[in-house]
């Protein structure tokens, strides 16, 4: 090959690099390792983790069973090692699956259109806010305090330099739902979006219809955020929202210390052109066969550059495919049954603990630690190889002494009983 190119050594191909630019040392990294050693290393790291612990953590990342078919599908090289389907004629596989993903997200959320994926729920949220700002021509955003605290942090990072002030509004300390009065008070004619989450960070199902009505009265859009997609199998879909920004981690995506996950944005037909991210559309090929391709690319950075709806390029396609396979496996009946199991497990444990809020919840709930500190309870549980709930004081000073617990279909009764015991609850109840 060197002969064909006409150079003596590969090094000659780097002659254009000025000498002061060249790195002449050797990188200070260990020598290459064999597969066997690499597996050993990562297993050792994994063994430092929580293998064999039961867990009651949720808070945006849920411990659901991953059907085996999911990895069967995403491990196929044709999905794993392809890229964004620019060339439709040899990408119909991924294009079709994305079209199905978009459709199922619409069916779940009651929206008309969903994109091919966002990085995750936390980045989908500010993208939704910015989208609302573009649509309304307004530049103020109200976000409920019951939205995931880290999502709100990301929202602030994204919006702060775009002249989009973000203001928070309160939740009702009794019900745990948004404080509609506070929202109404803060809404003004320059508010682009009202952001709520349902089920919210406390696990409580919000009344989206009511929130939307309030927002719409002032001409603002309602953005509904979700972190627990399984809830969508059972709770009323947020059809009254204008934009839905969600996280699909619950759909066969392993917690993986926080990522990769798959976010999504869905919206009404009229707002399609303001959506960020890739979108797959249906069309025909030269023979008249149904075919799919990337579409409405004029929204995107590679065409529109500084005027694009977002800078997103690479998304989370393979992870969205996991969610797609998950939805196909569970299907209509299964997703509901799964949601009912989650609901039932959460009720079982919640029934034995002092609930902090009154409104209906899905599979997470806030309990107060009966005067003991959540950390103390968690320490007791850890000793029994159980990871307890998330202490909320750090995120909500007013909820110091409370923790957020999550039960899923994976929660075993014996472990739930152990949690109840650790709270000193009456286990015969």
């Amino acid at each position, binding site marked *: 090959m*060197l002969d064909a*190119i006409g150079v003596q050594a590969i090094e000659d*191909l780097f002659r254009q690099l*000025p000498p002061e630019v*060249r790195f002449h040392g050797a*990188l200070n*990294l260990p020598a*290459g*390792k064999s597969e066997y050693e690499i597996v050993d290393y*990562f*297993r050792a*790291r*994994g063994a430092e*983790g*929580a293998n064999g612990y039961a867990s009651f953590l949720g808070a*945006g*990342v849920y*411990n659901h069973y991953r059907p085996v078919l999911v990895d069967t599908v995403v491990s*196929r090289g*044709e999905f794993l090692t*392809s*890229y964004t389907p620019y*060339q439709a*004629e*040899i990408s119909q*596989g*991924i294009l079709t699956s994305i079209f199905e993903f978009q459709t199922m997200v*619409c069916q*779940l959320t009651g929206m008309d259109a969903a994109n091919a994926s966002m990085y995750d729920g*936390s*980045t989908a949220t500010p993208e939704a806010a910015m989208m609302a700002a573009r649509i309304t021509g307004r530049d103020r955003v109200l976000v409920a305090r019951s939205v995931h605290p880290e*999502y709100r942090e*990301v929202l602030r990072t994204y919006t702060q330099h775009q002249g989009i002030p973000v203001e928070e509004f309160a939740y009702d300390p009794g019900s745990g739902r948004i404080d509609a009065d506070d929202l109404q008070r803060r809404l003004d004619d320059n508010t682009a979006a009202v952001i709520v989450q349902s089920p919210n960070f406390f696990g409580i199902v919000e009344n989206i219809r009511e929130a939307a009505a309030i927002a719409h009265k002032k001409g603002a859009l309602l953005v509904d955020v979700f972190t627990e997609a399984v809830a969508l*199998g059972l709770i*009323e879909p947020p059809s009254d929202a204008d934009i839905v920004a969600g996280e699909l981690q619950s759909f066969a995506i392993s917690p*993986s*210390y*926080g990522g990769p996950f798959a976010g999504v944005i869905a919206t009404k037909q009229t707002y*399609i052109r303001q959506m960020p991210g*890739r979108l797959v559309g249906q069309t*025909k090929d030269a023979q008249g*066969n149904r075919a*799919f391709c990337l579409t409405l690319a004029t929204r995107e*950075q590679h*065409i529109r*550059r500084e005027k694009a709806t*977002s800078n*997103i390029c690479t998304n989370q396609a*393979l992870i969205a*495919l996991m969610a797609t396979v998950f*939805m196909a*496996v569970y*299907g209509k*009946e*299964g*997703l509901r049954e799964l949601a009912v199991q989650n*609901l*039932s497990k959460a009720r079982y444990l919640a029934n034995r603990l002092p609930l902090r809020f009154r409104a*209906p919840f899905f599979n997470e709930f806030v309990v107060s630690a009966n005067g003991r500190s959540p950390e103390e309870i968690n320490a007791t549980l850890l000793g029994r190889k159980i990871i307890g709930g998330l202490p909320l004081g750090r995120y909500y000073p007013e909820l110091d002494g409370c923790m957020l617990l999550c039960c899923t279909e994976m929660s075993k*009764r014996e472990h739930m009983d152990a949690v109840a015991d650790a709270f000193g609850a009456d286990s015969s109840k």
Partner: protein
Amino acid sequence: MIRKVRTHINQNEPLLFERSSPGKKGYQLPELDVPAVDPVDALGPENTRDEIPGFPEVSEVDVIRHFTRLSTWNYAIDLGLYPLGSCTMKYNPRINEVVARIEGLAWAHPYQPEALSQGAMEIIAALEAALAEITGMHAVTLQPAAGAHGELTGILLTRALLASRGNPRKKILVPDSAHGTNPATATMAGYSVENIKSNDRGMIDVESLRRAVNEDVAALMVTNPNTVGVFEEEITRIAAILHEKGALVYMDGANMNALVGVARPGDFGVDVMHLNLHKTFSTPHGGGGPGSGAVAVTRELEPFLPAPRLKRAGGSWTWNYDLPQTIGRVRAYYGNFGVLVRALAYIMAHGAEGLRKATLDAVLNANYIRKLIEPYYQIAYDAPSMHECVFSDDRQAARGVRTGDIAKRLIDYGFHPYTVSFPLIVRGALMIEPTETEGKQELDLFCDALISIAREVEENPEIVLKAPHSTRTSRVDEVTAARKPIVRWKPESEAAQAPAEAITPATERAGP
């Protein structure tokens, strides 16, 4: 002569929704070990949905056949060369898929006690250190989820540093050859964009740059090697010009596959940069993602990095949230951890020498292709190519054939096309990046194919214009798709009423 492919039967497959029949199911849940709750009782009727209309109802074998059949319609690295320029479509070692699924890692909850997360934290720390070493930078954040996200993070860091100096400034300079994410990022970070012209060697024109740099300029976003695959030879002078005016140099590291082990951005004046771990470090592209857009910075920028940061305390790792100058989070939790595991495994497998050798081979392969097809296609710039080579369709356009047509014809020859019509400064660009993991046999077949197509353009342009001819789906009508967007399936009755939209179709540009 097409030597690389033949045609073969390939299964048709309807959409999941069309495959459904009522009551079919592909799942079985464990028996509930607690009393079943009635949802309407528990949630209230107003909060409980009816069934999900149209949602799939299929069996387990339906699911596996559905997705297996679909998969056979895709091209992939596992099937052959995937020379999408700027995308670094290298082979993805399967060991990385194995380690990312190790239970203690794949099932680690981001909020589990730090005492039970030391392994995951150690991996993050090890990867940060390795990337700092490779880039010659001082510190690294792994929070961003992809390149563009890294860009946003980097420009917000720039803004934070400048703001801390008293003035965040107004604009970002972006060469006209830059990737679309660069200007889009600048906008998202609240800056205006000023384009910088490239010179006739495909590089930043230093004089134009000098004229553009003033106290309003926050940073230059430079890609190096740039998007025409050429090393910015004046990079140290360029950096000096920016620095002199108090502006920063942001490097888009998408093309770092040309530099690892050979040159370090930290040594040539870069203040902040991102790496695409899914490119240079081979975490699989997965049909469009996930990726990771690690950002590396100088010591000066470190205090502004997104919270939290890893800290060593008392012999173990802890997450430090006490960072008064942080720009804040750019993502919940700690980044695309599963992708980070894969990238670290890649670095471990290669070691220092293996990484350097990969760089050399990547550049060798690109130059080999360039040499073989240069007699048939117009090279965009004379300057030496690094890891990719960019041609123009000038000669073929004279016969009415454009880069997009050549790309479609390449499909018939058994290849995924190169990146089409990018960068924008090249008329009808063919942007070819083979990567180091291709062998000579595959490269020769590819060059033969391009040469054969060049001949077809002379002798029988129709065959190129109508390509592809051998795929199950013939040329796809993207214009109609954009004009009347159908972005979800509906039962036939409803679908008929979909509203039409008048939208200008996208250009023919495809990739990266």
